[in-house]
């Protein structure tokens, strides 16, 4: 069984030496009846032409003419390929189903055989997927899935023998001008030679495992349909992934619009063992109809092209289509609908990230002040003045606010009244943010030290000298303190300040690390995001963006999220470092994000605050401030608090 692997599916380059001179010229007339008007595609066996049927002189009746070049010099192979061609013609001629193209004629001329069939005015699914700027709407995919089950069920119940399509994949499925699904290319003759070393890249990915044992069954078509639906919904091309790896890519990890029930149906159709899949295409169709959201809640499916969300999150509907109701709440790209609950203006730029505790918002400002503002109403409560700008983000613990200042000091201030409890002086500006853990405040200074300072009294417990400014905020586990420094060294020291290990990035690490299980994640100015094993300090994975990373990662159960100066916001798989999605902004992303209930929030140098869906990376909303946003948002009780270099603190509905 070698006929399932088609290495030269069109569109593809003509085989070397085999080709272009063989293609029929426009206006060639075959059988005194079919005038060639163009080439629809090139395959390994020949071309598919568009032609006009001259038997209907008064109307313009177009047909598709599939050509097979029978170039083999071996008479047996020539005979076999011709038989295959006639078999395809006979099968097609016996079928009547709205999703199967009609066949009108077949004939052969010398070394070429021709099949004349209905011309389908539409696009194949591969083209639709490739050209779509974003996910195709789930309601539409439901309809395609049900229609495909219907036609497969029709083929599988064919008498006397079931017809196994064997090659369900996006390029063999067309969506016609009436938005109906059409199966094309019942090609059984394929060109693949055994024994030749080759790759299957670009040719495989949809076939079921058992096909490689020479088994072609209706269950195999069900698998290939599942693979096709998986590709449509995830936008992940299975031909670029290891074969049979759909289970490693749950659909909803990529596309949060897909309901779990739809995902479950597709994943069952992708079971490795045929007996674990649906027993029939009809059974799969029933399952789909059962879980499909009721038509009341689904938008009408009209028009001539699929409705897609574009990357900016706006809904685009083609001309003639009824505007679709988006499945999640989208705001138009202008963002004007996002109205702040309140705004508070400081005297200078805000680079510090806010913290909200017990109804109070604390944030530092370049006007030298640490502000306390009412979180509910944005009313001023108090301001503590230092001698330098405050880039450090405050940490609040047990009624005390801790923060650093460019005046070289770390301050501990009473959170209710804004009175100083103690301060600790370093040798240079303190731009790192404090971490409060285990009775200590850990904070870095531009003097090259990471300090551990006792909460009670502000005395130094130890200092770890690195020699270069420490602007990264330390992460503290049960037994390690983790932080980066401007030299590019990333340190793990134990709780007594003794070095456990050191990882060397190529440029500075301003980014503040986060930890999940045995991995610590951070970004570097060397453009990479690193995942390092906590116990050994060895690199588990790294991911390269296209510019420096000054921002810090955040985590949820499965992803690490981080922005880069290249303007992209990345969601990476924690375990593998593979990108799940990325989102482009117009400015450098220097802020840490925050994750809250399936949404991730961050600011960009383009002045916007973005809210994205964590699963899909789709824009939920964005909000324009008057300047770059370099401070991290804070989410508390359904409100996003964010600050901008435009001097303002904003409270937005999450």
């Amino acid at each position, binding site marked *: 069984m070698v006929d399932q692997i088609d290495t030269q599916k069109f569109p593809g380059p003509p085989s070397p030496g085999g080709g272009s001179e063989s293609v029929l010229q426009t206006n060639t007339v075959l059988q005194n009846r079919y005038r060639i008007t163009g080439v629809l595609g090139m395959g390994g066996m020949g071309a598919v032409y568009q032609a006009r049927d001259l038997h209907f002189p008064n109307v313009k009746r177009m047909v598709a003419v599939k050509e097979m070049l029978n170039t083999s010099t071996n008479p047996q192979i020539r005979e076999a390929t011709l038989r295959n061609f006639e078999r395809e013609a006979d099968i097609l001629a016996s079928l009547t189903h709205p999703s199967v193209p009609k066949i009108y004629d077949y004939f052969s001329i010398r070394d070429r055989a021709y099949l004349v069939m209905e011309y389908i005015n539409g696009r194949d699914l591969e083209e639709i997927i490739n050209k779509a700027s974003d996910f195709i709407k789930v309601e539409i995919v439901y309809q395609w899935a049900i229609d495909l089950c219907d036609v497969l069920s029709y083929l599988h119940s064919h008498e006397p023998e079931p017809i196994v399509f064997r090659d369900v994949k996006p390029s063999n499925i067309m969506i016609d001008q009436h938005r109906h699904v059409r199966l094309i290319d019942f090609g059984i003759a394929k060109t693949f030679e055994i024994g030749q070393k080759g790759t299957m890249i670009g040719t495989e990915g949809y076939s079921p495992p058992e096909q490689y044992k020479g088994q072609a069954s209706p269950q195999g078509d069900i698998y290939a349909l599942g693979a096709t639906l998986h590709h449509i919904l995830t936008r992940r091309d299975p031909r670029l992934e290891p074969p049979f790896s759909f289970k490693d890519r749950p659909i909803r990890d990529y596309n949060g619009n897909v309901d779990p029930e739809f995902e479950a149906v597709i994943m069952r159709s992708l079971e490795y063992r045929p007996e674990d899949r649906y027993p029939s295409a009809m059974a799969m169709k029933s399952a789909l109809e059962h879980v499909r959201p009721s038509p009341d809640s689904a938008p009408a499916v009209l028009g001539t092209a699929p409705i897609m969300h574009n990357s900016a999150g706006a809904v685009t509907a083609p001309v003639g289509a009824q505007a679709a109701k988006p499945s999640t709440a989208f705001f138009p790209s202008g963002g004007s609908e996002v109205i702040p609950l309140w705004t508070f203006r400081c005297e200078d730029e805000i680079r510090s990230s806010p913290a909200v505790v017990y109804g109070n918002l604390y944030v530092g400002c370049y006007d030298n002040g640490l502000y306390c503002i009412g979180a509910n109403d944005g009313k001023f409560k108090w301001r503590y003045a230092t001698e330098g700008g405050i880039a450090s983000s405050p940490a609040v613990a047990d009624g005390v606010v801790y923060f650093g200042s460019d005046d070289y000091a770390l301050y501990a201030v009473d959170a209710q009244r804004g009175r100083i409890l103690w301060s600790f002086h370093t040798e240079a500006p303190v731009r790192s943010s404090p971490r409060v853990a285990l009775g200590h405040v850990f904070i870095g200074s531009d003097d090259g030290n990471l300090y551990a300072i006792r909460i009670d009294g502000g005395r130094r417990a130890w200092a770890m000298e690195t020699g270069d400014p420490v602007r990264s905020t330390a992460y503290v586990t049960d037994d390690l303190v983790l932080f980066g420094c401007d030299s590019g060294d990333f340190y793990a020291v134990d709780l007594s300040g003794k070095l456990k290990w050191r990882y*060397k990035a190529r440029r500075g690490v301003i980014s503040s690390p986060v930890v999940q299980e045995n991995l610590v994640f951070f970004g570097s100015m060397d453009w990479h995001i690193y995942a390092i094993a906590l116990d050994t300090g060895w690199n588990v994975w790294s991911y390269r963006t296209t510019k420096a990373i000054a921002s810090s990662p955040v985590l949820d159960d499965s992803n690490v999220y981080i922005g880069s100066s290249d303007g992209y916001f990345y969601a990476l798989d924690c375990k593998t470092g593979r990108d799940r999605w990325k989102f482009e902004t117009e400015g450098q992303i220097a802020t840490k994000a925050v994750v809250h209930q399936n949404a991730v929030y961050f600011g960009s140098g383009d002045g916007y605050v973005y809210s994205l869906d964590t699963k899909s990376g789709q824009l939920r909303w964005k909000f324009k401030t008057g300047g770059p946003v370099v401070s991290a948002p804070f989410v508390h009780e359904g409100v996003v608090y964010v600050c901008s270099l435009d001097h303002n603190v904003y409270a937005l509905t999450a």
Partner: protein
Amino acid sequence: MALEPAQVTNNHTLQAPVDTLRFGHGSDVGQGRKNNQDACTAFAATYAAAQGRMSFGLFVVADGMGGHMDGEKASSLCIRVVTDHVVEAAYLPLLTGQDEAPDLMETLNEGVLASNLAVTEQMPNGGTTVTAAIIYGGKIYITQVGDSRAYLVEGRHMKALTRDHSLVQRLVELEQLTPEQAAEHPHRNILYRAIGQSEHLELDNKIMPMPFGARLLLCSDGLWMVVPEAEMMDILAATPNSQAACEKLIAAANAYGGPDNITAVLVDLPDCPDIAEPGPTTDR
């Protein structure tokens, strides 16, 4: 910097101390093919001075595919790009100690990714596997694409360190084929990952502590798919000289008909760690 592939003289006959890397290599067209699409690089460098000594090794095997000489051009281009990059970005900085210490796994990956771009651009109809290993500082770093293999050989045991990116291997992993069925499968040569097929390429990485005194074997499928593992182990155990062992392995594949090109690079790992490294240490 352009390096001649596989032109490094082997030094197995020298009375070198056992703290250096010694290797043998061989590549043969076999009997079933007209041209040899395999290529390999063996780069072993020793530095010894009063301050200490270090050994650095880079070993690469590539098995090209594609008609019209594209396969051999692809494999040759691949190993030259990888070697060029690793020598420049890893070996020379380590030797001089002038630049920051390189991350060796990343450097090796960068070399392989660069070779992927080079092959994709220059050999659109060609592709290649690549199995590449750096040996340095008590560790072995391996990057793998395709179905050439790296084995660790210790005494009479050998263990594959790489996983084939082949359709049949995947089917075996899913228990859809037995290893025996895979060995006979008509599509056993079909890869799902190779150099020169797509700009998007994922690499398999392995970093392991060096087992002192063991051997590292890199080979193309013309060896491992043809000669039973037990027979390979017999040859390796009986032949301490690494060059002689490579030649015997190739002869064994030819004795089985030599259906494909055969390439083997066998490295004798040092018996003891380096004393000191001239440049700054790498990570940690």
